């Protein structure tokens, strides 16, 4: 089990795996059964991700799907990116990197693909990449806020950010960050600056 309070959702979208596939078995052993979701069809997986945008998520995505009705892994990635940059995506493919076209590579790099790996590699190293993604998410401000809210039973109703037109509670700010609004982005920037400021003025200590 991971140590953070709010577990990250791990979404596997791959048509060559089933519930008993070693990688799934091991992921569920490492995280928890309910936090690892498997989708054999790309569209179903994409819909699940889009329906859960408010949650911390890592997606393990296959590049090619055999079913003609399925969209490619690359399309799924682009669709996710149209909505959010906060979901971490690990793309796996049975193809060699050399088989990717220039355009495909451009999209993957420019739209912040977290990791790219060959399917023929050990599943342990694929799980390693998922772990890295989970850890990276936990380093983010929104993850810290969510953990705090969980620890305090989400009861905090005090407005902590007051602008000329609105007041925001911590929970509302989390939503703004996850939705990548300017309010959310601005808040993250200020929190980071403030934290450094406080540490440097010896007002706070990190233990």
């Amino acid at each position, binding site marked *: 089990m991971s140590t953070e309070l709010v577990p990250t959702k791990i979404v596997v979208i791959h048509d060559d795996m089933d519930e008993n596939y*070693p990688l799934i078995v091991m992921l569920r052993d490492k995280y928890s059964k309910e936090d690892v979701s498997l989708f054999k069809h790309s569209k179903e997986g994409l819909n699940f991700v889009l329906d859960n945008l408010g949650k911390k998520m890592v997606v393990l995505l296959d590049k090619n799907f055999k079913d003609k009705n399925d969209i490619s892994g690359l399309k799924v990635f682009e669709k996710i990116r149209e909505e959010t940059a906060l979901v971490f995506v690990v793309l796996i493919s049975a193809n060699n990197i050399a088989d990717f076209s220039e355009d495909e590579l451009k999209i993957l790099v420019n739209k912040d693909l977290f990791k790219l790996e060959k399917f023929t590699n050990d599943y342990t190293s694929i799980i390693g990449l998922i772990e890295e993604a989970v850890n990276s998410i936990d380093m983010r401000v929104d993850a810290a806020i969510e953990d705090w809210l969980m620890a305090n039973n989400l009861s905090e109703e005090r407005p902590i950010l007051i602008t000329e037109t609105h007041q925001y509670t911590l929970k509302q700010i989390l939503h703004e960050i996850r939705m990548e609004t300017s309010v959310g982005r601005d808040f993250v920037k200020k929190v980071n600056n403030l934290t450094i400021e406080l540490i440097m003025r010896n007002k706070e200590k990190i233990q």
Partner: protein
Amino acid sequence: MGKAKQSLKWRFDVNTFRLLGRDLITDRITAVYELVKNCYDANATKVDVSFTDVTKLNESRKIVIADNGTGMSFDDIRDKWMVVGTNSKRTTLYSAPPFNRKFVGEKGIGRFAVDKLGERVEIRTKEKGAKSWLCVKINWDEYEQIATSTLGSSAQQLSLFTEIENHYFYETGKEDEHGTIITISKVAEVWLGNDIDRLYKELSKLVSPFYPITPPFNIWIQSNEVSDFTNRQIKPEPIKYYSHHAEITYDEAENLQETLIFNPLTGVIDKRKISIRKFGPVKIKIFYFNEAAKKRYNAAYKNDDTRIDGIKIYRDGVVTTPFAEYEAHTDKRRDILGIDKRRWRGTFDTIGTREIIGVVDITKEKNPLIVDATNRQDFLANEEYVLLKEFILTQLKAFEDIKTFERSSKRSIVENELIDAGKDIRGFERELEQLATQAETIENPTFNRLVTTLRTRAKETHALITKSISEQKKYQKEVERKEKVLYSLISMQEYASMIAHAVRTSIAKVKHLGEFIKENYPNPKFGKYYSMYAVSIYNEMNTLISVTDFMLSFANIDGSFEEFDVVELITDLLENQYETLFHAEGISFEIDIKDNFIIETNKKAFQDIFQNLVSNSVKALKDTTDKKIKCTGFLDTDKFVIYFSDNGYGIQQEDREWIFGLFNTRTAEQGGAGMGLYIVNTILKSLKGGIEVVENEFKPTGATFMITIPFNK
């Protein structure tokens, strides 16, 4: 010897009559055709030609030709129909109004036509307003008997044709009934489906496919035995498979006639407007069949190219040339427009009657000077007709230019240049020839030697160019062959990359399963997975073996292309190669493929399609009691369509596309690797065709695949 003035009369016997008829009506198709033309002349709007029990020589066999025309009076029968050599049709050219039909029937030929068709004839006829139907019975067979029985007897005059009495009687009818019904029994020859089909084809040419006849003239064929002809109206066949088509019309108000001209810049036929010619305005439609189109056409109609039969002239919607005589041998048909004659004159790239279907529509009102010659075998050779002929040939010229254009664009630039060089050198040779002739008169040894040397050189160069042209042609052929192989290679490449991806996926799975065991064994927490994964590894390995087997079998295909008949291939496969298997499995099969289809491709690959389909069906039929496999096929306008069906457990709606993917199988436990339909799909794609699951033919269970293969364009 008495001196009293005595006279001698001409007489002639039954056989003479029949001999006459045989010369005039050579064929039974012509016989029916002539009778139908008579119906047209009689202002009929509907003719029924019905065949009863004619596929065997039964007692009940008969042919009935019934029209709703004007009918005949007793006088007509006595003074016209029964007078050999009557010329009633020549005195009047047109039938009674409002029809005003130009007579098309041959003069007095009907009686010979009925004789050709059968031994006994009954004519029932009635004019409008007459009280009763006149019925005349003519029994040719009795004439014959009389002729035979009286041979050698003293009463020889009895066999004289003119003295035989034919019975007639009246039957009551309604006043407004009219028409003629000719019933021929004791039909002379058997009429099978294809004979009736031949008649259908000929009759379908009687009326212009484009010009509406008013009042109409509809012909129906009926047969109580051939299902294709149960009450079928004759309609001009739609012209299919042609490669080029053009039509011209006119604008009388503006005095403009369209004419065709080939545009070498665009490679298409354009229309130009000229003033209406001396012979009057005409409408023309021409359909041209280039080599590829003829191939398609022959494939579609089983090499029966009698339908591509040149240009016919229709007047007011009814055929005038080639005057509707039926001639089974296309080569013997009269070529009154002189289309084929031009070929004997050696004109290169001319178009023959076997490459075009054309219709020229004229009217008696607008083209009054185009008139039939008295022998009715051609038009009167007046100036107008000569001009019309020329005009028609001009239209053909546009298609001839296309033919040349296509031929030269098929050649490479190099070949064209070589051909030009060849022409130049021939010209050069001719000039040298002249020079040499002149040189003989000049006594200048140096000059003469030079000319001789030049001539030898020119000859050598000419020979070299000729050789180069043939080499170039060979090379071109080789290029075309390579293009074909390359095409299949391209699809092979795409295919190889698919296979590689699938194989890698499979290997990755095996690796992950092994990795799990390596990492975790003997941790009891994962106890249930170890044996499960062993089975998975085993199955995955089996799939990999079948994939590599298939790759090897594909590698063994020699890449050669050959022409073969799809129908023969399927029939041979199902009837011979699978006979034992079908028998052992208790599967009954049915093949019903209507048209032949010749295809040029790799035969082995094509066989794989059906082998895979059969293999799938056998699996799907495992639990069916009354096992059936059915394969039907037919030619559509631009493709060959094959349906392959079984009544097995069928395919789920959501799997209809999925099953064509590599490794996608629902029969894993029966050893299915998910290769078969993928292969089928790949091969068909390389033929630019396709396969899909359609609604199952057998109900309630079963699967039907529809395969389509387009014609080569």
